[in-house]
């Protein structure tokens, strides 16, 4: 972010403490100033912060530096057009009283605030539907509070009826008792999931149907919630990497890269050129994998099983390449802070080129089946449309946002790892229907392959690790032969990488959208707090906007088209 | 003539009896089951039995029409309508009139007596009139000898269709 942009933001808020962190602005406001600040950020035309990325709470109970209040809430907001990012931090004197909601400004705040309430027990005044979201509704306590013991498990049995929620949703859509009589039919309530072939995981999609049209829809998530953030607080920074594999498991290495990129940005480590190119190659390769999975599954939902094999055969072959490189097929854990686990093996260029050609063939074959297929057009064009404004309001990022016509891509707008020097396009849809979402992904596969080819051409030789023994394990020869190496190794293994205390947010264009990590570090080797900003959590939050008024079969293919991955949705 | 049970004619006779049993059983199920859907199933069985009886009467065309129209169309339509209603309601009894039992009995008895009288009074020919049962003869007969009946039936059908539409429109308005 340019210095002028920072000045611009600060000048709009006299009397509010603004400071620059990494390349964004962090503002600390008092609770009574919060509403005013947020609405200014959203509504001032020159500020225009239209994309609420994330809301998270912080519990300072065990933080070494004393704070005014035990709790704080942090809003991460982006202006995608001018590449400005701002974090608004507000201390919360009384969590039961809480802070005012901002659901009227951004629709994405709905689920985000529910998550903060669920995890930290911070109330949001005026929130329309404040209840738990990731944890079970019978769960007691708030797990991300520091005084919640990490080993304290709870067993909850009863499923939640969601009766009131769907009734409210029906009312919001103008369906009440009299309309029900008018349409001369009874409304049928139907659960798609949590265990249903369409959910590709475990999500509960609860619908109210008139015939086969969806009148109202509410969703319940959290079936795969495994406490990623709480677990991360108990691990050293490098030990978190295997956990990140399980976020979006379709593109595991992208999460690894996003995570270490976030840590390195705070440590100020400038990784080697070869490592940058490796990360670009691998993250684009995994973007291709992720899109292959998404499109294949989506077309299977449509009944076109043959596409699945054309695409999945190549994904399967790609896994062979990945396992030759990393030793694992799915969960690669291939990055380390300051570098990569290993360099490429000899002859990887050939394998990669063969694989890319095979992927191009598979994708072209699949496109030949669907591109001019009347049934595909009838089913996808104009169904489950989402306008750009709604998509931004719900915090959509990535292919789903681009399908709605917003050309926002962090690789172009906030480039890292030399992305500015690569020649690639950002495919953009026009209407935001299912067809656009599928086709944007198809195009991105070709663009990613283009990037990989360029990167393979220009990848330099050299080390893959930086020479920084505070962050990177020394080579084994040093460990065995001199005492400093041994000491470094010992300290890094036992204590982890010491990260200076502070708070920061860093993001990465993952296959599904903006994957962000919000850290609070206390100077030790373990993160004091780690919050993930998973792209598909917010996309799922806007699911009902897309499917209400459509048919039940459209809801199923729409769920496939937005690529919900349980691992990062529920964490 | 007393055919042995194991001759071809005997087996056919057995199948004939079976057909009658199926027809009657279907009728009983249709009248006595508590669930409407089962009643429809009984009705369907009954129709199939009647169709088979037509076949025995050397009239395969009527037999097939019986199956096509009554099983394929009427029974499907009825059960479709019933299933769209709440399945819980369909097992409940409607209001029973005290007179409905005796009244039904009397009607059935009168019908039986009437049919029996007609059957006894008719001068059955020595040889059953067997034609090839083909569509051609039926078509010719319908459009010549029985054209009046044919037209009247179509008017009845027209009236019932219009009536159904009127009722459906009323239901939608309210």
């Amino acid at each position: 972010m340019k210095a002028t942009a920072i000045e611009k933001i600060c000048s709009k808020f006299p009397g509010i403490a603004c400071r620059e962190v990494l390349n964004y602005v962090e503002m600390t406001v008092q609770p009574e100033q919060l509403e005013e600040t947020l609405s200014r950020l959203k509504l001032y035309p020159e500020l225009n912060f239209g994309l609420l990325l994330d809301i998270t709470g912080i519990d300072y109970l065990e933080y070494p530096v004393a704070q005014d209040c035990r709790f704080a809430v942090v809003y991460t907001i982006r202006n995608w057009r001018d590449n400005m990012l701002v974090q608004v931090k507000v201390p919360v004197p009384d969590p039961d009283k809480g802070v005012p909601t901002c659901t009227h400004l951004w629709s994405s705040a709905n689920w985000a605030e529910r998550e903060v309430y669920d995890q930290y027990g911070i109330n949001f005044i005026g929130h329309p539907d404040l209840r738990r979201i990731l944890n079970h509704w019978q769960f007691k306590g708030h797990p991300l509070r520091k005084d919640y013991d990490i080993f304290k498990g709870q067993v909850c049995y009863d499923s939640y009826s969601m009766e009131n929620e769907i009734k409210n949703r029906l009312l919001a859509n103008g369906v009440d008792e009299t309309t029900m009589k008018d349409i001369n039919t009874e409304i049928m309530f139907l659960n798609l999931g949590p265990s249903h072939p369409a959910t590709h995981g475990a999500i509960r999609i609860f619908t109210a149907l008139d015939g086969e049209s969806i009148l109202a829809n509410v969703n319940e998530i959290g079936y795969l919630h495994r406490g990623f953030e709480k677990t991360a607080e108990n691990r050293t920074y490098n030990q978190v990497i295997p956990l990140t594999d399980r976020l979006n498991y379709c593109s595991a290495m992208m999460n690894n890269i996003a995570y270490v990129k976030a840590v390195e940005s705070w440590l100020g480590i400038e990784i080697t050129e070869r490592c940058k190119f490796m990360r670009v190659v691998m993250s684009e390769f995994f973007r291709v994998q992720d899109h292959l999975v998404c499109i294949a599954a989506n077309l299977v939902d449509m009944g076109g099983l043959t596409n699945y094999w054309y695409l999945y055969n190549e994904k399967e072959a790609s896994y062979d390449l990945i396992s030759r490189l990393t030793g694992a097929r799915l969960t690669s854990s291939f990055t380390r802070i300051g570098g990569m686990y290993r360099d490429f093996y000899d002859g990887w260029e050939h394998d990669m080129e063969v694989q890319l050609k095979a992927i191009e063939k598979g994708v072209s074959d699949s496109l030949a089946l669907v591109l001019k297929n009347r049934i595909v057009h009838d089913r996808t064009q104009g169904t489950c449309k989402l306008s750009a404004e709604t998509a931004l309001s719900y915090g959509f990022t990535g292919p789903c946002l681009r399908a709605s016509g917003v050309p926002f891509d962090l690789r172009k707008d906030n480039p890292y790892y030399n992305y500015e020097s690569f020649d690639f396009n950002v495919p953009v849809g026009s209407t935001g229907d299912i067809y656009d979402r599928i086709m944007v992904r198809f195009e991105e596969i070709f663009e990613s392959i283009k990037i990989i080819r360029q990167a393979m051409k220009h990848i330099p030789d050299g080390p893959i690790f930086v020479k920084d023994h505070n962050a990177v394990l020394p080579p084994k020869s040093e460990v065995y032969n001199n005492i400093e190496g041994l000491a470094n190794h010992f300290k890094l293994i036992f204590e982890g990488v010491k990260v200076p205390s502070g708070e920061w947010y860093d993001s990465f264009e993952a296959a599904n959208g903006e994957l962000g990590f919000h850290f609070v570090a206390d100077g030790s080797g373990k993160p004091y707090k780690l919050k993930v900003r998973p792209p598909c959590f917010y996309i799922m939050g806007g699911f009902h906007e897309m499917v209400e008024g459509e048919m039940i079969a459209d809801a199923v293919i729409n769920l496939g088209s937005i690529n919900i991955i349980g691992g990062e949705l529920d964490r | 003539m007393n055919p042995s049970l194991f001759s071809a004619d005997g087996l056919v006779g057995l199948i004939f009896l079976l057909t009658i049993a199926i027809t009657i059983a279907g009728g009983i199920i249709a009248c006595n089951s508590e669930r409407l859907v089962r009643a429809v199933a009984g009705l369907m069985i009954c129709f199939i039995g009647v169709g088979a009886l037509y076949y025995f009467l050397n009239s395969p065309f009527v037999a097939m029409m019986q199956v096509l129209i009554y099983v394929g169309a009427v029974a499907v339509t009825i059960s479709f309508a019933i299933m769209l209603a709440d399945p819980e309601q369909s097992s409940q009894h409607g209001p029973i009139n005290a007179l409905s039992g005796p009244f039904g009995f009397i009607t059935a008895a009168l019908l039986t007596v009437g049919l029996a009288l007609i059957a006894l009074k008719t001068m059955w020919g020595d040889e059953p009139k067997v034609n090839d049962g083909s569509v051609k003869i039926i078509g010719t007969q319908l459009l010549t000898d029985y054209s009046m009946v044919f037209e009247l039936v179509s008017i009845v059908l027209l009236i019932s269709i219009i009536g159904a539409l009127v009722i459906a429109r009323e239901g939608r308005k309210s």
Partner: protein
Amino acid sequence: MSLTLLNVIFAVVVAIAFAALNAAYLVWAERRGAGRIQRRPGPNINGPFGLFQPPLDGLKLMAKQLTIPGGADKILFVAAPVLSMFPAIMSFVTIPFSEMIVAHNMNVGLLMIFAFASSGSMALLFAGWSSRNKYAMMSAVRSVSQAVAYEIPMLITAITIVLMTGTMDLMEIVRQQGPSILHWNIFPLLTNSHNLLMPFSFLIFFTCTLAETNRAPFDLGEAESELVAGFHIEYGSMGFGLFFMAEYANIVIGSCLTTILFLGGWHPPLPFLGFIPGVVWFLLKIYILIATFIWIRWTFPRTTIYGLLNLSWKILIPISLFNLLLTAGLLKVF
């Protein structure tokens, strides 16, 4: 009379065997065909080319317990799969496989097949309703509206053929299509009406067959992505097996009927090929049609229910009605 009836019973037994065998090996053919289309081997472990797979699958299904969900209507639940096989097997009785091989030729054979085919949707309705499952219920409703919608253009097309041939006797319909490929009803030039729209009639009839047998792209009844498995969601064991067999038996019947009405039945395409028995030609034709069924299934995605109904009511029915009138007119002219 008596002998023909016994013939029928004997034929029913043969038909059951034929249907079961066909169903079993069509599943194999379908899976191998799908594998071929999708660049994967398909079943290839049990026996040569995986040929033992179907009997083993059958054995597995028979060994399983038939679970009846609580709250289901037990009698109808058990009766529905049996009922689903009934129309297919009855229809086999009147199908002429060649000049010689026909169980019981009726002068209303075509009518008989339609009569029993129309009762097939009862089985789906009973299965869907008795399962007491919302998905099954939705599927039953879909299947029936689909069956009703596609029966109409199918019947109209069949009536066109009846007009042209002047009979509902399946053997007579085939006899009139000899001796060469140019006399088949699908080709309009040498038939008595010279109706140039006959190829379209064939396509309509074939499309309706796809829809009536609940095959992709019209497999909305069991749309596995939204309705999980549709009307047979609650069925396991041979309950499921019977529905499965019925689907394939219906495909065979549909292919037989298409062959008889449009593709010249047992007639060879050219007269000098007559030394090959008619039944070979007949089977060849129906298996080519079945292969097309399989090919279509693995090529097209599923339509939506509205798209499906629109296709029938707005496109197929008007065209087939027009074709019927045209045929009637042309028959008067020529």
